[in-house]
């Protein structure tokens, strides 16, 4: 059996690239994310609900057809109830900034916070 090192120079490069990628993405998010305007809920890729986060004052509860319950509160939105086995969606916590997203994969449900661009659509809708 050929001897393989514990850690090599190539390993350092791999780790460095990964850390740079992740740090770059996180920094980009930190600088570009703004307080969200709306939360879009999709089930199986279809948008089923749009929640206005700007005007939400008290806690507002939304129950989807698949039994998932969401709560919008203080301009944030979070998964409040789901029958999925590991509850990762519940642990994700409250979403606030544009681009923030939480997913419940067993229930095929995703919540994504969106910004200004969807407000234009709202204005047209009024």
């Amino acid at each position, binding site marked *: 059996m050929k001897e393989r090192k514990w850690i*090599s120079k190539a390993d350092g490069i791999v780790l460095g690239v990964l850390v740079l990628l992740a740090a770059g993405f996180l920094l980009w998010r930190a600088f570009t994310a703004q307080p969200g305007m709306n939360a879009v809920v999709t089930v199986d890729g279809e948008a089923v609900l749009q929640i206005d986060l700007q005007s939400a004052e008290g806690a507002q509860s939304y129950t989807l057809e698949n039994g998932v319950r969401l709560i919008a509160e203080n301009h944030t939105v979070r998964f409040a109830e789901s029958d999925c086995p590991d509850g990762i969606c519940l642990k994700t916590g409250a979403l606030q900034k544009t681009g923030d997203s939480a997913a419940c994969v067993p229930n095929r449900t995703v919540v994504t916070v969106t910004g200004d661009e969807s407000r234009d659509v709202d204005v047209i809708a009024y």
Partner: protein
Amino acid sequence: MKAKTYRIALTGLLGACAVALSYLESLLPTAAFLPPGAKPGFSNLANMFAASMLGPLPAFGIAVLKAGFAALTRGGTAGLMSLCGGIFSTAVMLLLLKKDRRLGFVGIGVISAVCHNLGQLCVAAALVGNLSVLAYLPALLLFGAAAGALTGLVCRAVLPALYRATASFRKK
């Protein structure tokens, strides 16, 4: 003939270790700063050992067994995600162990852990029909890198002992 039987038995043992490690790490408390659902993936140790000592079939077998365990205990979705992540990371691990000359154990552990996360995330994106789950990617890359480095170090540390202990299990 006898050596073949030993290899099958050793594969079974490693599979049992992988399942036991999966269960044990589910008992660990989750920390708030970690991405939700992130696991250290200790059971990849069994995978890495099988991939480096026993060859492709046992390594893939263990990946499938782990997915079956996840499906039984955490539901079909978790099982499918584990299966795709496990197969992808095992394939990459086998390829690197065979072809690569420059990476160390840490590098292989890191790359296979990140591939595991990538495979799972792609399945998740396909299942929910939405790419926004990729927002989890940077956190999973960082966490996967740390977990994979640990797996690689532990694997390298215990490999000589396991190699000696299982000398009679391998081909004679």
